[in-house]
Structures are given as C-alpha cells and as structure tokens.
C-alpha cells in the first residue's frame, strides 16, 4: 500500500534539490508545485504548441481564403467597382488575420488540455497550508515513516499527509 506525502520548501533551489534527493532514495516524485516556471524541473521534452499552432494558423488562413472565395466569387459575385469576383490580393488581409486567430485559439486549447486545467479540486488542495504560491513536492513511498524521514532530510519546512 503506497502513501502520498506533501512537503513544502522555502525556495525554488530547495525544491529542485529535494526532487533529486527523493529520486536518489528510490521514492517517487509524483508532482511538484511552484509559483513560477522552474526550468530545472521541466522535462526536456518541449510542449508541441508552436508546431501545432503553426499548422493551425496555415489551415486557418487557407480556410479563410476558401471562405472568401466561396462567398464573394461563388455565392454572391456582385460587381463592386469593376473588380473581378475572385480577387486574390483583396482576400489576403482577412486570410492573414484569420490565420493568426486560428493559431492563437489552437495554442490556448492545447494549453487548456495539456496543462490539465478545468479540474478545480485534487487531493493536494486539502493539504493544510497548500497554495500555488509555495514550493511543494508530493512524493510516493510504501512506508510513511521512512518517506517522512526522507522529506525531512531534504530540508522541508513541513511535511503533510495527502493520501
């Protein structure tokens, strides 16, 4: 039967050091929490936001161009000042803007799901004193006393039971 304990640290450097020490004692770091981005904690793999958003942007721009052709050259080809119904140059500004918009919306949607937002509660929320403004680690072990002792050795300000 495994146990989860949460420990709070004073600084980002303490948190980074603690995760290394916990790993070395064969316990598992389940999650880390910090009030700002810490490069050392982030896995080396980059989130694929830029690539997918770029693709969405190109798709959005092409779709906008096709939409403009559909409504102004095919469905409703009125003669406005003698301009041809299909006028590529005039279709460019909206295509560009819609491309940017599609890329941005795609980035935000990816972020929402990638960062697992929308879950308003998880067990760590009930840990006394837990806040997103602190440096916390949640670690898993099989023996609570041993895990607690490991966390104390890593310089934790306090250690709390999670589950």
């Amino acid at each position: 039967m495994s146990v989860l304990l949460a420990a709070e640290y004073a600084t980002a450097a303490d948190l980074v050091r603690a995760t290394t020490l916990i790993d070395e004692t064969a316990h598992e770091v389940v999650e880390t929490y910090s009030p700002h981005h810490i490069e050392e904690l982030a896995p080396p793999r980059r989130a694929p936001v830029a690539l997918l958003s770029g693709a969405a942007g190109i798709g959005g721009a092409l779709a906008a161009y096709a939409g403009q052709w559909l409504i102004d050259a095919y469905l409703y080809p009125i003669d406005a000042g003698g301009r041809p119904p299909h006028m590529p140059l005039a279709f460019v500004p909206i295509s560009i803007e819609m491309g940017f918009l599609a890329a941005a919306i795609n980035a935000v949607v990816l972020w929402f799901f990638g960062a697992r937002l929308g879950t308003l509660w998880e067990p760590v929320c009930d840990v006394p004193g837990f806040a997103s403004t602190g440096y916390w680690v949640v670690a898993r072990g099989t023996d609570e006393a041993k895990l607690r002792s490991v966390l104390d050795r890593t310089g934790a300000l306090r250690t709390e039971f999670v589950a």
Partner: protein
Amino acid sequence: MTLYDRMRTPAGWGWRIAFALSGSLALVLLAGIVYTVGVGIGVWGTNIPAAWAFAIVNFVFWIGIGHAGTFISAILLLTKTPWRTPLSRLAETMTLLAVAQAAIFPILHLGRPWFAYWLAPYPQALGVWPQVKSALPWDAAAVATYGLVSLMFWYIGLLPDLAAVRDRATTRRRQVVFGRLALGWRGTTQSWRWWKATYVALAAIATPLVITVHSIVAMDFATALTPGWHSTLLPFLYVVGAVFSGFAMVLVLVIPVRAVFGLSDVLTDDHLASCAKLVLASSMILAFSYILEAFSEWYSGEPAVRHVLLSTASPVITAIALGGNLVLPQLLWSRRVRRAPWLLFAISLVILVAMWCERFALIIAPLLRDHLPAAWGDYSPSAVDIGILAGTVGLFALLFLAFLRLLPFMPVSELRGEEARR
C-alpha cells in the same frame, strides 16, 4: 508585505474621485451613443466630403494606443528584454481597454449599428454575403483578431496570479470567483511547461499582429484614391505612430499607479527611462516617415497631392501634432528628464494629444481637398462628437481603475521567477 498585499491597498479618496469622474464621462459616452443610435449619425459633424471624420480619427487613435501593450508584452518577451516584466500586465490591460474603445467607433459609424453582425459571414438564407473586397470587413477581421489574441495573451499571463489570489482569499466569494477564474491552476511542473510554451507561442503570434493590424487600418485609407491617403507608406507611418502613442500611454498609466501604490522599488526609474527611450526612438522614426511621406507627395508631381501636402485641416491642430510628436520628445535626450517621473508623465500626456491631432490632420485634410475643387468642403465636429470622444476616455479610465481594484495588476509570478533565476 508581499506584492499581492501592496496591490490590495484600500481605495483612497483619490481613487474614488477619479472613479467618479471617469464614471461621469462614461455616462456622457452612453448618452452620446443612445442619442446617435436614436437619431442617426446626422447628429455628428460628419458630412460630404468629410464622411470619415471624428469617429474614424478616434478609431485610429485608440487602435494605435493598443499597440504598445503587445509590443511590450510580446516583442520584448521574445527578445528577452529584462525591463519588460513589471510593465507588462498594465500595458496588456491598456491594450485590451484601448481596443474596446476603438471598436465602438466603426460600429457607430455604420449608421445602423444593430446590423454590425452583417460584417461576419454567419450562416443565413438571404444569400447576401459580406463584400470582402471592401476594407470594412478587413477592419472587422483585424480588430477582432487583435482583441481576441490580446485577451488570450493577457489571460494566460494572468492565470498564475489569479490562482495566487484564490489561495490567499479570505472570503468565500473571492475564493469562488477567483477559483473559477483560475481554472484549477495549481502550478504543477507540467502546467508550467505548457504555460511557458503557450505564452511564447502567443507572443510569436501577437508580434506580427502589431504590424498587420494597424497596417490593415492604414490600408482602409491607402486603397482609396483620395490624395494624401493613396500611399504605400501609410501603413508604415500608422504603425510607427501607433507604437509611439502607445508607449506614451503606458507612461501615463504607470507613473500614477507607481506613485499611488508605492511601487517605485518594482517599477523603478530605470523602467520608466527605458520606456522613455522607446518614445524618443519611435519619435525619430516618426519624423523620418513624415519626411519620407512629404517628399514622396511632392515628388509625385500631382497637383492635388501637392496641394493636400500644403493644406491643413486646422493650422493649430497641425502645429500641435508636429510640436508634440517631433519637438517635445527631443527633451528625452536628457537623462534627467527621462528620470523625472512627473515630467515624463506631462510629456506623455502632450504626446497623446499631439498624436490624436496627427490622426485628425492625416484623415480630415485630404478629404476636404480632393481632386475636384468643386467637391472641397469644411469640417467641424459637433458636441456629440466631442462628448463621445471624451466619453471613451472616461470609459477607458473607469475600466482601468476597476482593473486596479479587482485583479492583480503586477505579474507577480513572473517577477518571482525572474528573482529566483537571479
């Protein structure tokens, strides 16, 4: 005392008076809109030939103001400029509020604003679709995109701080409201990794928008055959002016906030001086583009274009525009001026007025002196025009004051991150 506590300083009398004044002006805007919609835009000074008058001047002015927010947040983020962070949230909020003011004008200028949704190609059975070869749908697409991307960028930056406010909330109402707004953000490593990637991606998307949005606004004019407007230089001139006026507005907002909340240790004189240097640099580029524009108009040899170059909608307005945009910023060469906050504030205020006058001169004068002398005319704004302009200033200030009270206006999580890295 943490930065969060300092931002929660109780509202003093100064804030209440400012809120009441800006609220009163916002009511003037409401009255102006109701009157305009009820009676029609005949209550404005708009006429033929000055069909694009006050409303479009104000639209161009406000859209321009919005540009510095994205410039500071996106471009300076990508270039890793260190002084950007403390200014970013205030500048981004300024962008959102300025775009909201700008959007009011073209919608009212439609004459029948309740049909504004016709600009969007919504599914319908009539078979009458928007004419995308007209510049009006370009504007709608550009402004809507800019507003939405700015909103997303602002919200993503704000989210960790909303979570911090939620965690520090002492009342149930604040816990619930900020709990919902924070979307369950807890600052896990995974969420920070995604946050960083998305924030940078959105910055990269927003950066070209700084150029495209005002360029598209300028193309409304450049694609017309009106002398003085029909120029490929116009988008460049508009974008430079936009960034210039936007930086001035950042200083106008940041200096009082810094004084009232006692944030001179976070928003230091160095930050203000850096911003002032950008005002000076953009003023110089603006001067260059004025000269370029004037030369190309003279070199065209076309009588109507040359005539527009020499004619002005109002000599006073032209003098204010040139004095405020080109002469006054030269004071910023002085290090002492750049490090004197209230002097910077005064200079920035004058620049804002001058930039509005520049927009007025650029838009109105060519309309009044078209190719055919028989079509020449005069223009003067009506009281409703002036009331609506003053009202947007009031609404902008009202929303900004409300933002200061309701949301964390400093990017604390980013500042803490920078501090930890040092």
